[in-house]
């Protein structure tokens, strides 16, 4: 044994240490959730944990490549056949034709999607945190690849979320289903604008503060409206799945299902920012009362 046994241990008592650590963690939580000044500390811890995160994703990566190998061996013919079938079906679909207004909308959508794909960075989901309280995923590209907080993340069907934190080689995506996340949207059918918010549950979004008599139907598709200047317009976000119109309440209870399927893909696209990120609006609001105080002092 290298160390001499300690018979009389000095130092603070267990309870004192508990109180210290509880207070410290409460202070950290308050600092992180409300004041947001722990950026550097988080970065330092993130660098420590990064190799482990990378290592942890190795087994699934191996599993994926093996799986892909076997699937590609067996299904190449079928895949080609299906692809041909898809082309034929597509042609028929086009011939059938939809309503002209809808068509125009869709074409517009396609245009925007194509334009954006050229400016996108492909990233892979490194892992999904086990924390049930917030809906986030970790991507394998970070500030070294030019990822900034505020960038939009999409998959092949629709909006997945937004980058909220970046580390040197990783970034955190807050999914649109997170309780603190909202996306400005527009109903394709009639152009109604609203804001869709996450509920904290998988596969569930809600439209809050829509009057009971609002013209909205089940099956309506919601796309980003683009009025915020952050989300590019025309990206599919969700489909209205359930509407409860109770006359005794002022607002209708509208539930939506996200268009993007986060759990089904490993690859996501990070879109580049349309406009530079604005200053944190919370800080702007918080500085206002100070000015008022100064004004008051000035009056006296």
């Amino acid at each position, binding site marked *: 044994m290298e160390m001499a046994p300690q018979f009389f241990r000095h130092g603070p008592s267990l309870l004192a240490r508990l109180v210290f*650590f*509880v207070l410290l963690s409460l202070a950290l939580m308050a600092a*992180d959730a409300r004041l947001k000044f722990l950026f550097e500390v988080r970065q330092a811890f993130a660098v420590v*944990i990064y190799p482990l995160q990378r290592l*942890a994703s190795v087994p699934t990566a191996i599993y994926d490549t093996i799986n892909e190998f076997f699937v590609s061996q067996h299904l190449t013919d079928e895949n080609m056949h299906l692809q041909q079938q898809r082309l034929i079906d597509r042609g028929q679909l086009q011939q059938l034709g939809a309503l002209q207004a809808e068509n125009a909308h869709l074409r517009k959508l396609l245009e925007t999607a194509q334009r954006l794909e050229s400016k996108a960075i492909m990233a892979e989901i490194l892992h999904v945190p*086990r924390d*049930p309280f917030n809906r986030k995923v970790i991507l394998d590209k970070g500030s070294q690849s030019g990822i900034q907080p505020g960038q939009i993340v999409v998959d092949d069907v629709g909006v997945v979320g937004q980058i909220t934190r970046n580390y040197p080689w990783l970034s955190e995506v807050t999914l649109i289903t997170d309780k603190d996340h909202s996306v400005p949207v527009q109903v394709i059918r009639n152009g109604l604008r609203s804001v869709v918010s996450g509920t904290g549950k998988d596969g569930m979004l809600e439209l809050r503060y829509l009057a009971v008599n609002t013209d909205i139907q089940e099956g309506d598709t919601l796309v980003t409206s683009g009025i915020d200047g952050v989300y590019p317009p025309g990206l599919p976000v969700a489909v209205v799945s359930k509407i409860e119109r109770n006359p005794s309440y002022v607002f209708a209870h509208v539930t939506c299902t996200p268009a993007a399927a986060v759990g089904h893909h490993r690859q996501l696209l990070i879109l580049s920012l349309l406009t530079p990120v604005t200053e944190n609006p919370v800080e702007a609001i918080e500085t206002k009362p100070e000015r008022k105080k100064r004004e008051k002092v000035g009056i006296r």
Partner: protein
Amino acid sequence: MAFANYPKQEILRPVKGSLIVLSLGLALLLNLLPLKGVVLTLWPDFIALMILYWCINQPQRVGMTTAFVMGLLMDIGDASTFGQHALAYSIMAFVALVFHRRLRVFGVLKQAPQAGLILLVGQSILLLTGLLDGSQFPGWDFFLASATGTFLWPLLSSLVRIPRSPKSDSDVL
């Protein structure tokens, strides 16, 4: 009666610091595995298990400081509020340290439900802090991770015991 039930205790070799670091590192790795669905719900918190094990068996080496630092690392890995896991882990470590003498008297199997209770305390603290932060209740299946952790306890503690078991039979002189 008390003597009859008393588990056979063998004198274990001293724990190397590298074993503690390695086990905590492996636990962190297991916690960070990219899982989803049912497996993720059932996946126990390996760091909590390892901290409990070391707090019970090596209370003079692993304590609340280790638990706190591991909690901070887990907060980064989980993208949760900084300090949430740190709070839960340090309180779990405290409970384990208070009861470590009593817990060591029991065999591995009898320890499991008691370790499970401490795991439950830790998860309740996580839940409480999450709810205070404005999250919705994630559903009762959130606590299933503690149940699987309880079932894994005997296996894990005997696994960690392997490197510490005496090399030769101590009865042979």
